[in-house]
């Protein structure tokens, strides 16, 4: 099942992270500034409006973990260790070329790691509140968005005009709309593509830096997938169990979870994760005061660092219904306390909706592929 190759060129997205290395170098040579960012809470419109190039630097491989563990504790989330390790070793070109790295005080591990990162990279840390619904939290975040704007203007010696920020909001809204349209193709039954292909696009599009061209390419992809489906081409077997994936950021080596699902008679129809539906679910109000609109929209992302994290429950409920989900698989990275604890609430939520639920813990090694396969196969056999 997982061997289905689409005539649509998903490889363009699969290789985007690598291809982007050269693109970023060229952009740097042209005098462009590069901003490395970790999280979906980072309002990248500000960098775009400043003429800079935002790029995701969350790391998804165990390549640099050993190096990171010379400084960081072993019992820490692999994403944090890996990301810090890439900064230490200069092995990630994006980190290497970054003129500014922006992080937020999301989880304990990340915010303390940013202190260490600040000693080797030009780092700006946004104070993110842990609640999304009270005035004081919203006000804090709004001020943090303004503080980020000032930092970018000072560091890069530019002034971000109102027209520029509005244009940035507009083009990012378009991207989010396209990504949403693409994701929602999998509402079809059977879905038009396997979840592994969907993931390639979700992750790969983060490394396409010409935003106009990216939007055009996304449009083409959607049309091609639709045309194939309408002409009767099927890449997903009839009767494959429709799985929603949620939990920690999933990409790179952790696609082993997706493989385990899709080799066991399942198909991932939607990713609720932050490389997936979560960051595209909402758009920024183009008619409101831009910085207020940016702050309001980003703060509402439902990550487990928030308490209570009811926005995640609401999004999961909506996605399970709209994508006609047969089962929910949560991936928790080792030592991610906020997600691991929230699992208890998600389990109750899923039970209340009679949707089978399983949570698996994994890290950036590949040694547990067989164990994951057994769990996923057993989970799907139960349906």
């Amino acid at each position, binding site marked *: 099942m997982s061997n289905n190759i689409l005539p649509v060129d998903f490889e363009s997205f699969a290789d985007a992270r690598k291809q982007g290395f050269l693109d970023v170098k060229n952009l740097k040579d042209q005098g462009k500034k590069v901003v490395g960012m970790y999280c979906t809470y980072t309002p990248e419109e500000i960098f775009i409006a400043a003429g800079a190039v935002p790029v995701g630097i969350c790391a998804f491989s165990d390549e640099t973990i050993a190096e990171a563990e010379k400084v960081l504790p072993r019992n820490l989330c692999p994403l944090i260790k890996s990301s810090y390790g890439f900064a230490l070793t200069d092995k990630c070109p994006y980190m290497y070329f970054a003129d500014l790295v922006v992080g937020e005080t999301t989880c304990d591990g990340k915010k303390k790691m940013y202190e260490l990162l600040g000693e080797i990279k030009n780092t700006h840390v946004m104070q993110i509140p842990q609640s999304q619904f009270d005035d004081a939290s919203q006000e804090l975040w709004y001020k943090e968005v303004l503080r980020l704007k000032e930092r970018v203007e000072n560091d890069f010696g530019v002034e971000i005009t109102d027209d520029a920020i509005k244009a940035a909001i507009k083009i990012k809204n378009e991207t989010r709309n396209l990504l949403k349209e693409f994701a929602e193709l999998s509402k079809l039954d059977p879905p038009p593509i396997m979840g592994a292909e969907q993931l390639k696009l979700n992750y790969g599009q983060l490394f396409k830096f010409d935003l106009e061209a990216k939007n055009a390419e996304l449009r083409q992809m959607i049309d091609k997938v639709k045309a194939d489906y309408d002409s009767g081409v099927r890449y997903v077997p009839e009767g494959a169990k429709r799985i929603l994936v949620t939990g920690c950021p999933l990409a790179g080596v952790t696609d082993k979870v997706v493989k385990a699902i899709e080799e066991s008679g399942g198909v991932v129809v939607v990713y609720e994760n932050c490389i997936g539906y979560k960051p595209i679910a909402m758009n920024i109000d183009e008619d409101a005061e831009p910085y207020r609109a940016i702050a309001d929209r980003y703060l509402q992302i439902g990550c487990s660092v928030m308490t209570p994290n009811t926005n995640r429950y609401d999004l999961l409920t909506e996605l399970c219904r709209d994508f006609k989900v047969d089962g929910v698989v949560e991936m928790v990275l080792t030592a991610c306390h906020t997600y691991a604890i929230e699992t208890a609430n998600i389990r109750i939520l899923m039970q209340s909706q009679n949707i*089978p639920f399983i949570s698996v813990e994994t890290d950036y090694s590949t040694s547990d592929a067989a164990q994951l396969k*057994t*769990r996923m*196969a*057993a989970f799907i*056999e*139960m349906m």
Partner: protein
Amino acid sequence: MGWTVGIDSGSTMCKAVLFEGNNMVDQYLTKTGWNPALSAEEALNTLLDRGRQGFRRHIIKRGDVRVVATGYGREAISFADATYTEITCHALGAAFLAPEIGGVIDIGGQDSKVIRLEKGKPADFLMNDKCAAGTGRFLTMACDVLGINLEEIDDFAHPTESVHITSMCTVFAETEIISSLAARADRGMILAGVLQSIAQRAHQMTAKMGFDGTNPLLMTGGLARSNMLVSAIAKVTGFVVKTDQNAQFAGAIGACVKEIENG
């Protein structure tokens, strides 16, 4: 009536059963060894060769049997006609042996799992296979250090008193046992402590499964042969825990049940 052979290739033992129609007619147990495919083949050939037991010996032809594999070695058994996970198979096998149960506690050689059943079908499960805590490997280690034969644990363990083992980790627990021996603690009491520790681990898993205690649980896997362990688990969890003389074959039985169900 068709023939079905279920093979449960575990980390330590390879368990196989022969079904004629809906009835189990024979079983075979051998060490998994270094090559799961070889031990599975040995099990299959033995069962076919023995054929139908009784006064009319009847050798079964390979072409007349469906072979179903489960267990961690299932992927290596290339001659299997179908494979299912050990979760599904243990659940169905346990329900075959004891239809009234509400769940399964399986303690195997290198993993342990707890399965919740609804109407004889698996509804939820938890699996521990990242570390040896509370598995057969843990008990084997303890028996080695204590110089006790694994088959004699029920005779050896102190029936009422135990030395508390605080570490769940196999490596640390070994150090603890060695320290206890150095402090001249009674071996039977140390072994009782080890069984308590395995029971505690099983309790942590059953607690997360949300059993309500209406129906008994069945303990499967090689360690189900220890009555002391079964009663320790019953005491710690507060549930009625049963076992069955064929409990070790639950996975292999379930493989047959699943295949027969699928037609």
